[in-house]
């Protein structure tokens, strides 16, 4: 694990320069300037965009503001996918900064999960961790950890604290050699269909500790 630490740090600290623009149909009191932000690849959109919300709220009336959601070129962005995954799926072939459109009304109920608070993001994140551990260790490691350990894992991600996160995550990454290692290695495959091409690009993220760690391998398969 010590040799991999550089790789783990590089993955953790990956950033995507992003430009947030308010959608033209949103009602504003004066013109809204775009907002620029470096997004962490390993985090989630709704966790790291409080500043974006505050910025646009300055030019809007409270009654015109509902749940914030994001869209890229007409496609609602699923906040429950890690940011790096969203970028790779939708915009990896375009020039930086990544241009995301911000909405405060007409929430697409059929496409997006609601995210009324950070505790929803935490529940989703921990649910992924738990599912991965079900595959790796039959849930033994995650169930043996105390509530405060779970909390530390989450706070590490929320506050962008690599050491705090990995102090807990390394327990989930241990594979006892006497038991033959991980029972199964969790993979999550995200598939995007591009209608104009005959190839299907499949992005395979090897979930070292299950999201947020993404080592991206791009395979182009002809199907």
């Amino acid at each position, binding site marked *: 694990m010590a040799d991999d630490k550089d790789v783990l740090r590089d993955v953790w600290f990956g950033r995507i320069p992003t430009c947030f623009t308010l959608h033209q149909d949103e009602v504003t009191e004066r013109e809204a300037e775009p907002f620029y932000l470096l997004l962490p690849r390993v985090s989630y959109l709704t966790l790291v965009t409080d500043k974006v919300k505050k910025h646009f709220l300055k030019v809007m009336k409270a*009654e015109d503001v509902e749940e914030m959601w994001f869209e890229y070129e007409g496609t609602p962005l699923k906040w429950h996918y890690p940011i790096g995954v969203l970028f790779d799926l939708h915009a990896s072939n375009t020039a930086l900064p990544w241009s995301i459109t911000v909405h405060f009304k007409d929430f697409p109920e059929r496409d997006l*999960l*609601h995210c009324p608070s950070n505790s929803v993001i935490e529940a989703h994140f921990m649910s992924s961790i*738990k*599912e991965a551990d*079900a595959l790796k260790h039959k849930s033994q490691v995650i169930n043996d950890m105390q509530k405060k350990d779970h909390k530390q894992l989450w706070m590490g991600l929320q506050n962008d604290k690599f050491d705090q996160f990995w102090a807990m995550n390394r327990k989930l990454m241990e594979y006892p050699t006497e038991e033959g290692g991980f029972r199964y290695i969790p993979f999550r495959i995200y598939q995007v269909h591009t209608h104009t091409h005959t190839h299907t690009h499949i992005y395979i993220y090897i979930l070292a500790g299950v999201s947020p760690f993404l080592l991206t391998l791009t395979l182009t398969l002809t199907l």
Partner: protein
Amino acid sequence: MSWSVLDEEGFSRCCRLLVQQSQSLRDGWSWEPGQGSAEGYLRKTTLRTAAFTSRPEREPEGSGAAPEQHTAPGRAEEPSQSDLAAPAASGDADDLTGAEDDGADEDDWVCRAPAESSSRVLQYEYHVLYSCSYSVPVLYFRAFTLEGRSLSLDEVWSCVPPQYRARLQQSPWNTITQQEHPLLGQPFFLVHPCRTDELMRPVMQAAQQQLRWVNYVVTWLSMVGPLVGLEMPLSYAALSPQSPTATAAEQEPSEA
């Protein structure tokens, strides 16, 4: 030796049996094949009358959506005659008849809700999928008003029978959350599957000791379903499996 979980083949067989029994009981379950040949899920839609608290038009800024914190009084609407008479948006005539026959269930379903709630006819859609990670079935569902508006998580919580609500809220892993449907990619609610094996262990062990075959999916649904308004008529237990000898062989413990 793992009696409390189910492998995928066992899941498919249990579902097939359930659908056969459902057809003779006119209970409305169908099998929807997924894109792969073996993959698929159980599906059922029903209409339910429920008293629930409507959520206000907009989300209050920065507030947590904890189930016990119901926000400002919802719009109290009288259930109009047209609500009750109108067919469901995507349900067919058979579902409608089936729901009306479940008169006995409606009293159990209407929960004691605060004064500002209203009684509404809601359309519920239930899916049962297999989870490879947990080796158990998972209950996904979504709910709509007859106008087609999706219910929020808060509203869904307000429809959970009070006797279950406290227990579900205590345990964060056994709770109802919103997630992406694994096959359809759309938002659904689900009852978290990570404690299903604990739930099923006593039943399956007892069945094994008594050399009795039990349909894992039917038994599990009869326990988990009522949390979210889904009833399994007792008649399922009265119907015997089509091929007891074949199904006895299925009860081999899955690979640990």
